[in-house]
């Protein structure tokens, strides 16, 4: 489980004042009848983009974070595409406007250079300009020998396209300029989203909520983390982005709560796994009164990985401990030496201290 260190404001609905231009249209049961009778007139349908906007590298502001997505509404045409903007430092909601693309726009994804790419439901990828309008630069899946892309990442500078092209537990890596397939990166779970981190590194989110940091140029996987507890994900359900200014991983996951309680927000995580389990202390040699017995102490994260930290140990009066504070090694393990002073049963209590900002 990663360490949560940022949380934006909840993604807000419009007020009636903000929909004045459509208020002359009577809410109709023809569109999203399930919204009738609720205390509202629209609801979030799908998130289709999350990216950072650092104002061309200017450091005078704190940068913004942007969510794009769809809402359902009770008047024609029954849907709308929005772009919601948040302050990257405070997390405050800054405003909304229409998201780029029309009904055939499916997803907005950020390339390695910060540029945005619009994915059409018909397959092509359109590069967007600063005005959020297509620049005319288009990539077609058939150039890469596939019918369509799922999640994708475009690296213009290093000439790579990384994408999921089917439901396999794999990413396919292509040369952007020629469309030639380069290599496959296999994962132990199905990828649902990916984002650029730096160099030729990317984070890949999988349906099991596990994250992998990998180098897409050579296929090497540097490590794996887990986001934390929650439902399984699927392609298109959740988005991640890397915030280069604050060096944190961003996640937006539509709330599972029904109705009009808007609880969808951007979360930021420090790349520091948090231990979630302390193994039972296990003797490594036979326990005998009067003899010293090494006892294994281990802390692990929710992927089963060992995590370092500090463990406080307390024991009953019949056990003498070699020390009461243990530093766990890179495997999350440490060995304490326990001397049983007399025959009988005693309990060893472990307390783990986790350094974390939140």
């Amino acid at each position: 489980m990663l360490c949560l260190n940022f949380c934006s404001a909840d993604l807000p609905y419009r007020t009636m004042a903000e929909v004045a231009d459509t208020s002359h249209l009577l809410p109709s049961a023809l569109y999203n009848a399930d919204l009738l009778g609720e205390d509202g007139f629209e609801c979030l349908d799908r998130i289709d983009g999350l990216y950072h906007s650092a104002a061309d590298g200017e450091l005078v502001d704190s940068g913004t974070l942007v969510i794009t997505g769809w809402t359902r509404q009770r008047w024609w045409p029954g849907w709308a595409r929005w772009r919601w903007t948040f302050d990257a430092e405070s997390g405050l909601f800054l405003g909304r406007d229409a998201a780029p693309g029309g009904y055939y726009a499916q997803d907005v994804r950020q390339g390695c250079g910060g540029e945005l790419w619009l994915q059409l439901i018909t397959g092509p990828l359109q590069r967007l300009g600063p005005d959020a309008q297509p620049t005319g630069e288009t990539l077609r899946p058939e150039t890469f020998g596939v019918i369509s892309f799922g999640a994708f990442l475009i690296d213009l500078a290093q000439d790579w396209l990384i994408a999921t092209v089917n439901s396999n537990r794999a990413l396919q890596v292509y040369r952007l300029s020629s469309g030639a397939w380069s290599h496959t990166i296999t994962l132990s779970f199905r990828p649902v989203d990916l984002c650029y981190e730096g160099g030729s590194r990317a984070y890949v989110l999988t349906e099991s909520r596990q994250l992998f940091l990998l180098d897409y140029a050579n296929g090497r996987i540097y490590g794996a983390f887990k986001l934390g507890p929650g439902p399984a994900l699927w392609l298109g359900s959740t988005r991640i982005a890397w915030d280069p200014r604050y060096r944190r991983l961003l996640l937006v996951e539509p709330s599972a709560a029904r109705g009009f309680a808007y609880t969808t927000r951007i979360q930021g995580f420090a790349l520091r796994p948090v231990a979630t389990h302390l193994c039972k202390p296990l003797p490594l040699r036979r326990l005998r009164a009067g003899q010293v017995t090494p006892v294994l102490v281990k802390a692990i994260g929710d992927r089963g990985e060992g995590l370092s930290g500090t463990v406080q140990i307390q024991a009953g009066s019949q056990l003498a401990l070699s020390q009461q504070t243990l530093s766990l090694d890179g495997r999350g393990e440490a060995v304490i030496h326990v001397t049983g002073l007399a025959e009988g049963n005693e309990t060893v209590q472990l307390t783990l201290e986790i350094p974390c900002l939140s």
Partner: protein
Amino acid sequence: MALELLAGPLPLLNRVTGQALGSSLSGMPIWLDGQGLLLPVTNEGIYLVQLDGAAYLVADDRSLVYGLALTGAGGPLNRGHGYAMTKTLITDPGEWAVDPLTLYRGVRLNAQIITPSHNYARLHDRYLYPIGSRLDCRPLDFSQDWQRETSFTGLSNGNSLSWGTQPTHLVIGAETGQFVHYDWLTQRQVGTIGTIGMACRGLWYAAHHGIYLSLHTSDGQHALRLWAPTVQPTQLSAPMLLAPLQAGHRVQCQTRVLGAHQEPCPNEVVRWTVEGPGELLLNATTTDAEGWARTYYDAPLEAGGAAITLRVEVAC
């Protein structure tokens, strides 16, 4: 040589869901030193299981059959702890070097299937594969079929492999609860065949901590047991004097602590008590490498009279 139980049974539970794991395995688990037991479960995926039974799903390829392997990267005397995985179905069958934690498949070591659903070892010059009472070997290039490399007298149903303490040692575990250390360089058995005294599904040696662990499945529930590398004391011989008893003299007395198979139990503390006249020099002594514990009895100056009774006990 029957080992002494350290802990267990420790039930295997998915630490995230709190559910027990499925009882059907889609491959032989393998112990990753310092990390856990890699356990493939049919229709669920591969779990990484900690020594206390906490299990975490690290891959969800559910329809595959896995062979999990030890790979000895480097030369025979500087081998590293590598791991490989054989996959049988869907895409990319063959043998792959894997990162144990991410199960990332790196180098494709062999395009062919090695031994699905079994542990095997990929050494610098050959494959090794435990089956029954023997170890079979095969060239890395598959130019020959499997053939017997060695047989272990007294071992049956061998199925698990783990690294030994020495760079050239492997430990073969068996469903019967037996295990044996094997030097794959000299191709000789090391020491005698040991046992945990009960049947199991797999038995591995955790070299980093110097303990053994065994997997058991009962009523559809998996559990781990941890075993000390030392013999469980089961027999304590009656104390005896090493010289005739004489008034006013010191005489040495001894007892022996043995395991279930007459093997000596070293470093056990034996407590001595005497009833009647006279005194013991030491009331508690430790057994030597042969399981003998010794102390001295100082007989009273006055001969005759009350009976003298020596008692011994060992704490275990």
